[in-house]
C-alpha cells in the first residue's frame, strides 16, 4: 500500500517534469504568445489522458479482459462516420466544419446516442452476456468503418485531405472553450465515478461474487458502459480518436502498481497517460520537429506493446 503511494508520487513528479519541460523548453519569440498556447495543449492532454485511462480501466474490469478498449464498441467509428458525412454532404467550408463548437457538439451527441442505442434499446445486460454486446458492437463498428471508406472513396481528393486531418488525433489548435466544456464533463463523470470506485473493486471478483456481495451488477455494468462512452466521446471529439492508447496505459499501470484498487489504477493510468502524451508531444515538436504526429508514435509504440501483451497472455493461457 505504502509502496503504491510512493510509486504514484514518482509518476506525479515525472508528469509534472514533463509538463514543465513542455511548457518552458526553448520558448522563443513572444512568451505571452507561446506559453498560453502550450498550456492549452497540456490541458487538453491531461483531460484526454485521464478520460481515456478511466474509461479503459473500468471497461476492462466489467469485460474482465485486459486487451480490450472501449473502442471495440465502435464509438470512434461513429466519430469517423459523423466527420465523413459532414465532409461528404456539407463540405470542408461548411459551418459544420468551420464552427468548432457545432462540430464538437454534433460529434459528442452522435457518439453518445449511438452508444445509448446500442446499450439501452438493443440489449439488456441481464438477458444477454456482455460478450454478445461486444461482438455486435464490433460488427457495427466494422460496418460503420466500411461505410466511411465507401464515402471517402467518392469524396473530392482535396476535401479528403482535410477530412483526414480530422481523423488523426491532434493536440494543436484546440479551442479553449471546448477544453473547458470537456473538463466539465470529465469532472462530472469523475464525481460519479468516484462513488462507484469500491463497487468496481468488488466487480473484479466476477459477476457471481459481486452479486453475492450485494452489488446490483447489471445496473452498474450499464452505468459504466454509458459513463465510459461519454468520456470516450468527449476525448475523441476534442482531439480525435486515440483510444488504442488506453490499452497501453491501463496495462502499464497493472504492471507497475500491484493492487486491486481501482482508485489507484485509475490515478496511475491517468498519470502515465499524461507522461506519455506530454512527453510524446515534446518529442514530436522538438526532436522530430513536427515531421510526424503524436498519434503515429502512439500507434507505433502501442502496437508493439499490444503484440507483447498478446504473446504474454497466450503464454499464460498455454
Amino acid at each position, binding site marked *: 500500500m505504502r509502496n503504491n503511494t510512493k510509486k504514484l508520487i514518482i509518476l506525479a513528479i515525472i508528469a509534472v517534469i514533463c509538463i514543465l519541460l513542455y511548457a518552458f523548453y526553448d520558448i522563443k519569440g513572444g512568451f505571452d504568445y507561446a506559453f498560453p498556447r502550450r498550456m492549452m495543449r497540456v490541458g487538453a492532454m491531461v483531460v484526454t489522458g485521464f478520460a481515456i485511462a478511466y474509461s479503459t480501466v473500468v471497461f476492462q474490469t466489467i469485460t474482465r479482459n485486459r486487451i480490450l478498449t472501449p473502442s471495440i464498441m465502435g464509438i470512434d467509428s461513429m466519430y469517423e462516420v459523423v466527420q465523413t458525412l459532414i465532409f461528404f454532404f456539407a463540405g470542408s467550408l461548411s459551418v459544420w466544419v468551420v464552427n468548432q463548437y457545432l462540430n464538437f457538439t454534433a460529434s459528442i451527441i452522435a457518439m453518445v446516442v449511438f452508444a445509448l442505442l446500442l446499450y439501452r434499446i438493443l440489449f439488456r445486460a441481464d438477458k444477454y452476456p456482455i460478450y454478445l454486446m461486444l461482438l455486435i458492437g464490433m460488427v457495427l463498428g466494422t460496418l460503420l468503418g466500411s461505410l466511411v471508406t465507401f464515402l471517402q472513396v467518392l469524396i473530392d481528393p482535396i476535401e479528403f485531405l482535410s477530412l483526414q486531418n480530422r481523423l488523426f488525433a491532434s493536440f494543436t489548435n484546440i479551442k479553449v472553450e471546448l477544453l473547458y466544456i470537456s473538463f466539465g464533463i470529465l469532472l462530472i463523470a469523475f464525481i460519479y465515478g468516484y462513488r462507484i*470506485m*469500491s463497487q468496481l*473493486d468488488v466487480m473484479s*471478483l466476477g459477476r457471481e461474487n459481486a452479486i*453475492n456481495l450485494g452489488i446490483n451488477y447489471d445496473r452498474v455494468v450499464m452505468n459504466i458502459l454509458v459513463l465510459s462512452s461519454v468520456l470516450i466521446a468527449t476525448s475523441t471529439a476534442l482531439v480525435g480518436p486515440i483510444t488504442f492508447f488506453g490499452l497501453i496505459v491501463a496495462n502499464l499501470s497493472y504492471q507497475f502498481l500491484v493492487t*486491486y484498487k481501482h482508485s489507484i489504477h485509475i490515478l496511475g493510468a491517468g498519470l502515465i497517460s499524461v507522461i506519455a502524451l506530454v512527453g510524446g508531444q515534446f518529442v514530436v515538436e522538438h526532436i522530430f520537429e513536427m515531421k510526424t504526429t503524436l498519434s503515429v508514435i502512439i500507434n507505433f509504440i502501442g502496437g508493439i506493446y499490444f503484440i507483447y501483451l498478446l504473446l504474454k497472455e497466450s503464454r499464460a493461457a498455454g
Partner: protein
Amino acid sequence: MIEIKELTKRFGNKPVVNNVSVNIQPRAITSFIGPNGAGKSTLLSMVSRLLDADTGEVLLDESNVKKWKSDQFAKRVSILKQSNYLNVRLTVRELISFGRYPYSKGRLTDEDEQFVDQAIDYMNLGDMQDKFLDELSGGQKQRAFIAMVIAQDTDYILLDEPLNNLDMKHSVQIMKILRKLVDELGKTVVIVLHDINFASVYSDYIVALKNGSVVKSGPTNDIINPEALREIYDMNIPVQEQNGCRICVYFNSH
C-alpha cells in the same frame, strides 16, 4: 426462513428446474443431491438471485428475494459458486476482506477486521493470509473463498459443490467447519454435494433432485436407505452403518 415455491427455469424449451417447492429448515445443513444435470446448481443460483426464475418465487422472511435490496440481501444470504476464476492479483486476506463489503462498502472498521481474523482462524489460513491467491493450490484457494463467505457473516450460507478440487482431508475439514457454523453459530447451510456419503454423514436434511424435480426430501435418515436411493439414482445401493454413520456402498453396485 427460505421458502422455495413452485420454481421453474427453462433453458430453451427444456425445463432444468421444474415446479420445485421446498422449505429450507433453519439452523441445519440441507444438502441438494442428485445425478448430473438434475438442476441442483440452477436451483441454488435462483435461491441466491444469481439467476432469475421463469415462474415461481423464492421467499426470504416471507418476502420475494427479488424485492430485497441487494446490499441488505447480501447481509442475510451468501452464495459461493464452483468456478472462481480471478484476473486480479489478490492476497488471501484481501479476498476475505471483500466478504465485509456489504457492511463496510470498502472501508474496513475494526469490527470488520475482527470478522476477517475469525474467518481466517476458522479456515486455518493464518500462515498463508499474505500469500497471493495465484500462488495457492486449488484446495487452498477454495478454502480462502469459503473464508470470504464466512466473513460475510450471513444467516444463510449457500455453497455449490465446495468439495470440488479438495482431497479427503480438506473435504472432511470443510464439512466439519460447516457443521460447527450450524451448531455453534446457528447458521443455515445449503450445499450442493456430489458425494452422497458426505451428505449422509454431515447433513440434517436432504433434498434429492432428478430431471429438475424433487424426488425425495426430508431428514437425512429418510433418504439414505436403499429404496429411496434407487428412486433417485436408478442404482441398487446397499447402505451400511458404521460408527453411527450411514455409508452408501455404491462403488460396485449395478
